[in-house]
């Protein structure tokens, strides 16, 4: 990261607009320090000698598999539900659109634990929806893997909706008119023109949602509980391990970090352009 900075500083014509002001440079490096120092700490304290032993313990592999599965399912659910909502917000003038958009952003500012409690009071066995469902079918969603997916979707969906709405807004609406004038219905225009044109933005929205789902902790532990194999995802595994084995927790943290950074780095360009769009 710092190498990129040096390189672009070297490429910039120094005489043209003057030096980079210190008042900008110093806080910028401060920001990098805030972001990077904790990660460096993690690396420094990592028990590199018995890394493999920690990583291959059944608890970790089970949690990793569960995390990857649930985060991916959550991302797909977000795409299926969130893309149409983003389209409505971007393309249809309806009363209360601003209000709906504000509602979508609520989970962004809500502490995940509060989200978990909200989910519990709605879908829990005694919950607003959960109780009639339990009485009718004898099924309760809490403490199941489904609950993990619900919790992750709840926190990840706003990221997807906002990113995709931005992508849809930045695609030229006149292509919709062209498609219609060539005889395409609104649905086929959406499928064959709007979606492909917004493709990069949708991908970055999906990646954001996946990353958010992968890191989800508060809502999951509150709503889905902490059971190995069914609801104990990687963040919960980190938390669990930390109770008894601090260095083990560092190893699991590094693994989680490596997985998410690996995916984000692979899509970095699109991710960044998607956020700005």
């Amino acid at each position, binding site marked *: 990261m710092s190498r990129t900075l040096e390189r672009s500083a070297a490429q910039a014509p120094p005489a043209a607009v003057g030096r980079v002001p210190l008042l900008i440079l110093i806080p910028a490096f401060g920001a990098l320090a805030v972001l990077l120092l904790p990660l460096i700490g993690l690396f420094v304290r990592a028990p590199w000698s018995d890394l493999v032993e920690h990583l291959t313990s059944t608890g970790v592999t089970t949690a990793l598999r569960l995390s990857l599965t649930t985060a991916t399912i959550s991302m797909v659910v977000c795409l299926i539900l969130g893309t149409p909502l983003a389209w409505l917000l971007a393309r249809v003038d309806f009363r209360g659109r601003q209000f709906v958009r504000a509602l979508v952003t609520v989970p962004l500012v809500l502490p995940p634990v509060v989200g978990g409690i909200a989910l519990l009071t709605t879908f829990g066995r005694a919950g607003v929806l959960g109780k009639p469902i339990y009485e009718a079918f004898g099924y309760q969603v809490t403490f199941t893997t489904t609950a993990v997916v619900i919790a992750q979707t709840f926190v990840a969906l706003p990221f997807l909706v906002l990113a995709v709405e931005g992508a849809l807004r930045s695609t030229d609406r*006149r292509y919709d008119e*062209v498609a*219609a*004038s060539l*005889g395409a*219905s609104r649905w086929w225009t959406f499928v064959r023109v709007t979606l492909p044109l917004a493709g990069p933005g949708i991908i970055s929205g999906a990646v954001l949602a996946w990353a958010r789902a992968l890191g989800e902790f508060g809502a999951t532990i509150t709503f889905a509980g902490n059971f190995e194999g069914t609801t104990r995802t990687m963040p919960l595994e980190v938390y669990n391990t930390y109770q008894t084995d601090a260095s083990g927790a560092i190893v699991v943290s590094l693994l989680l970090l490596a997985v998410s950074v690996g995916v984000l780095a692979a899509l970095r360009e699109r991710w960044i352009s998607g956020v700005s769009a």
Partner: protein
Amino acid sequence: MTTAPPEPDGKGLDADITARRGDFEVHAEIRVRPGQVLALLGPNGAGKSTLLRVLGGLTPLTAGYVRLDGRALDDAAAGVRVPVAERRLGTVFQDGMLFPHLTVLDNVAFGPRHAGRTKREARAVAAEWLERTELTEFSDRRPSALSGGQQQRVAVTRALATDPDLLLLDEPMSALDASAAVAVRRFLSRHLASVEAPSVLVTHQALDALELADHVLVIEHGIGVQEGPPADVARRPRSSHVAALMGLNLLRGRADGETVRLAGDSTLVPPGRADGDVFASFRPSAVTLYTERPHASARNVWPGRVDGIAPHGDVLRLHLDGPVPLLADVTPAALADLNVGEGDPVWASVKATEIDVYPA
């Protein structure tokens, strides 16, 4: 202002449109027979694109109707508004608007595909059309790999491939550089000839209308101000804007047999008898300039002052200010002989036989 009457059997386009464009109202009656091309000619912002959007179903009309082959596409009174996708249109937009994520072939196949054909059939239709328009070599390319002129030719092909009941062309040459515009204009003139549907072409270039249209409707300030065959409109403009588009001088006055009283105290001698309110038009090249009042046979002589000089093709076009504002074309050599520059007084004369006088 109305265009040619519809055929007795109701075939073709028959529209009486009132629509809002921002804060002003656009109104025109538009009639086009099958196979004919109507040009909506006018300056930018006159409302001609709004009329085209109404025909295309993209903008609602506030009053009136649009009927195509007897079928109501819009009817304000009856509350009819057929959705864009069901109008069976072919539309060519100003800057091509090819889908950037599709190949040329799939762009052209887009219309046939949505007319209910399978993917394979639609591609076959598209390939056939690309062959007809001699664009087969570009089939597998993305639009971004084509020049502006090539893109616009593909866009025309895409519109034709829908086998439209109505073809709409919105300033198809205006985003192109001069040489590409010439090529696309020639391409359009070749392929519009075989279109059986009525076509409406929006343009602010007189040349487009002259070359491509069977009929011209001039739109200014939201209303039709003149209509007729292109040659008539070109020869006998009825507004200073059309005259400027056609590169003609246009004067207006009141005739009493032998002379025409112009604005101010000037007069004009018409080639023959004329009475009532008239227009008089003549080419800038028909104007002869003198530094002193001429005593020659020409009786149309007006004083003026050179207000501006600009190259115009092989000649120089002088803007003359005075009681009778004029455009005059002179060769660079003639201007050198005259030895006048901007701000200098001159005398302008026009032979009566060079002037076309017609009722206003």
